[in-house]
């Protein structure tokens, strides 16, 4: 082998090692992100059972799963130190967004608030030499895309609540989605953001469904009042089926 070729082979052996290390690291982030996504979805399902179970049981279940999710984040955090956080953000962000959706739903159900980015980071914090520090970084984009997925789950909660006759829940959902829609529109005024724009149709259709549900509930209430003298059976027979309105 000529000295020139020897040098080339030596260099490229080293490049191969570097690229292998990079691809392996990327794979590890993808795996963690997938696991975080799966567990976050379980948290969402647990939270949506709030219309069947007691809130205490539901939040206890969610807290237990949340503890597990933090372990997954700790695992992923190893790969996301320093500049690597942005380097592998595209691989990490799906998990981060699903997590934000889960804790966002939790915050809405428990406190009727929109979770803020700093609250998300607080939830992701662990003790480092007596100080609380977030396990991973959360970009503004991660946060926005995470909360913009809330309408779907809030919609499910709302429909379940209608089935239970929980009028207040429907009102809360309505206001929440209206605020979310206004907020997202505000942000889209400032910058072109395709990923966020893609969420807008879902947001709009979720809002429409809830408004229709509220409409049918209101109509039924008016009818109930109107027919309060008549036997209940007649009033129910004229009931507008909530299911047909919502599909």
């Amino acid at each position, binding site marked *: 082998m*000529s000295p*020139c*070729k020897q*040098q*080339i*082979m030596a*260099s*490229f*052996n*080293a*490049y*191969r090692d*570097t*690229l*292998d*290390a*990079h*691809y392996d*690291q990327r794979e590890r982030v993808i795996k963690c992100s997938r696991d975080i996504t799966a567990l976050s979805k379980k948290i969402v399902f647990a939270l949506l059972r709030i219309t069947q179970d007691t809130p205490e049981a539901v939040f206890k279940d969610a807290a237990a799963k949340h503890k597990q999710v933090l372990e997954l984040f700790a695992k992923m955090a190893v790969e996301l*130190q*320093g*500049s*690597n*956080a*942005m*380097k592998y*953000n595209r691989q990490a962000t799906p998990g981060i967004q699903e997590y934000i959706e889960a804790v966002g739903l939790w915050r809405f159900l428990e406190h*009727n*608030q*929109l979770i*803020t*980015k700093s609250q998300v980071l607080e939830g992701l914090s662990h003790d480092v030499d007596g100080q609380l520090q977030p396990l991973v970084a959360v970009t*503004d984009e991660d946060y*926005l895309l995470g909360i913009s997925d809330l309408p779907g789950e809030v919609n499910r909660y709302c429909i379940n609540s209608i089935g239970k006759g929980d009028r207040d829940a429907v009102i809360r959902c309505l*206001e*929440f989605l209206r*605020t979310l829609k*206004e*907020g*997202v529109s*505000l*942000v889209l*005024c*400032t*910058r072109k953001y395709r990923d966020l724009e893609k969420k807008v149709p879902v947001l709009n259709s979720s809002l429409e469904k809830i408004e229709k549900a509220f409409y049918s509930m209101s109509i039924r209430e008016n009818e109930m009042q109107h027919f309060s003298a008549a036997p209940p059976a007649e009033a129910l027979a004229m009931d507008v089926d909530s299911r047909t309105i919502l599909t």
Partner: protein
Amino acid sequence: MDLQVFIDLQDKFDRETSLNESIRDAIKEFDRVCRLTSAKLGKAHSLTQEQGRETVESVKPRFAEIKQCIAALAALIKPETFYKYQDRWTNAMQTACALVAFSIYLGEARLATPEDVQQYLGFKVNTENTDISEFVITLEEYLHGIISLFNELSRLAVNSVIVKDIKRPQEIAAFASELYSGFQLLNLKNDSLRRRFDSIKYDIKRMEEVQFDISIRNLA
């Protein structure tokens, strides 16, 4: 529940807008100078080996300009956000690396090393998979640049025959073959690097065809 969260985000994005514009302008300038340099260096295809070396000398001021463009761009980028914006300039950087590779081959008939690239472009090539604390040229950008060299080499082989330099294609093909062996050591994933790597074999084929044409006519 109010909209303060979103208003704050709006403000933050507004402030980022001017940074984004500066970055965009810097990349535009970087791209422009690269294209100019590429045009000048491309003239070497119609020249002899010796004239090619002169062309390389005459292009050195252009490289100084490129170096300045990259420095201007790097000044805008904080290391923690490097990978956030890197996609925007990566094409221009790959071109810059390709220009260095071509220039060094024309001048010294050897492969441009990361150290060469650092000398010409002013920033280190990140050959390790480690955290970075400053603006770098990524290993992928360097490798993309080297892959571009294969295309120049196959053209050079063809054009050498046109300017009646019959010995040169043999040297070019031998060099290309060694370089290709190096590339084949890499484990690539299905990304742009892999796709461009796959195109190398067509350049190798063209060089072998030139070799064959020459030898079958007993010209060399």
